[in-house]
């Protein structure tokens, strides 16, 4: 594929797995924290594992905030990367109730999931229901299983692209303008995940 994908090196771990997933589908991948490289990319991926306060601290230390906010090409946030796309997150350091300011690319707040008697984190394969026809989910069956690992989520709201249910309904994917976020891990969601990443590359 000709398009040039840049994975933002947020300073958190787990960039390799998403990089490998794109390489498996034949993409050219660059991992960078250089604002010039990120801005010049055809597609940008904001990766995923870590905690919101640690990730935002790292993004600020690397002075990436303004660069990410100014992107106009398709951007995909994965898991924590998606959560960093909204305005703020209730996830603080362990035992802290302080909220974390995020990138504010899409309105919304990340909240701790309220699941009653169910276990947290929400960990494992769950069904994703596509709410709208969208290129990101093109060709992916309604109710396909994707792999989730998280305790915080964005509720089902106006920017929800696909939803999932665990104790309540939440956003499995969100979208506004050029910004897309998925709560699940496409890089670890077998064939369905690879399909979604291919769709993103074709945008």
């Amino acid at each position, binding site marked *: 594929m000709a398009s040039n994908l840049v994975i933002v090196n947020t300073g*958190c*771990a*787990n*960039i*390799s*797995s998403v990089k*490998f*997933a794109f*390489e*498996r589908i034949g993409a050219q991948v660059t991992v960078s924290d250089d604002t010039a490289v990120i801005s010049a990319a055809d597609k940008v991926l904001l990766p995923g*594992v*870590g*905690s919101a306060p*640690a990730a935002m601290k790292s993004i600020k230390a690397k002075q990436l905030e303004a660069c990410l906010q100014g992107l106009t090409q398709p951007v995909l946030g994965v898991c*924590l990367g998606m959560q960093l796309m909204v305005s703020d997150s209730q996830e603080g*350091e*362990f035992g802290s109730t302080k909220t974390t300011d995020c990138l504010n690319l899409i309105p919304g707040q990340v909240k701790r999931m309220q699941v009653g008697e169910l*276990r*947290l*984190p*929400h*960990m*494992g*394969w*769950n*069904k994703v229901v596509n709410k709208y026809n969208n290129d990101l989910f093109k060709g992916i069956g309604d109710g396909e*299983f994707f*792999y*989730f*690992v*998280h*305790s915080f989520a964005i509720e089902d709201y106006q920017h929800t692209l696909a939803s999932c*249910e*665990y104790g309540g309904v939440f956003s499995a994917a969100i979208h506004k303008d050029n910004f897309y976020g998925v709560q699940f*891990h496409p*890089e*670890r*969601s*077998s*064939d369905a*995940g*690879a399909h979604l990443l291919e769709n993103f590359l074709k945008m």
Partner: protein
Amino acid sequence: MLARRIIPCLDVRDGVVVKGVKFRNHEIIGDIVPLAERYAKAGADELVFYDITASSDQRVVDKSWVSKIAQVIDIPFCVAGGIKSVEDAGKILEMGADKISINSPALANPSLIKELHDTFGQQCVVIGIDSFYNEETQKYEVYQFTGDESRTQKTAWQTIDWIKEVQTHGAGEIVLNCMNQDGVRKGYDLEQLSAVRNACHVPLIASGGAGEMQHFADVFKQADVDGALAASVFHKSIIDIPELKAWLSEQGVVMRVNK
């Protein structure tokens, strides 16, 4: 609906997959990467790689295989063994592992759990617990350094107390290995797992004892665990994963079944 997970466990020693009975007499099963690939293709929901020499040896263990696995498989995997610090965990996660599991180092330093939680997020922090039923005291006791028979020792912890403790430090998932059942294929320890389930508010993975398909149905239905881990039944092709998942679905257990 969240699917229950079927998790093959690959015990790794010196870069190859091994399996012993009751933690002893390890025999070589095969190379890591082709086995991992085979399980991913067969529909395993997750894989656990347990470097059984790591926690008990002082030497630095070569973990380059983690990166090789991450390149080829597209399902989540967890690496256990030899992770003693935030730096160790960071290296494994950077190589592409989704989760790290700690056992003996958490017993030596419970605050490591919180440090891992704060750095990488709760979801990557798995606590492995080796629990042995002591017939004399009629109590479940936590053991450490189980990867090396000569160093295996009992701790002061009773299993249920340790399970409660690790959750207060920020554990994201617990894998409970019932040592009495390990490798003997007589079924999971339903009694212990059910008791633990009530005290465990994070995902709980059952380990030790799987011998036939019914054992999986029992552990999901009776002990309400989130995942069932097994090794020998898969390595020795006693149970076929697609067949197991299809059968469990028929039994009413929610499964991700390959289309």
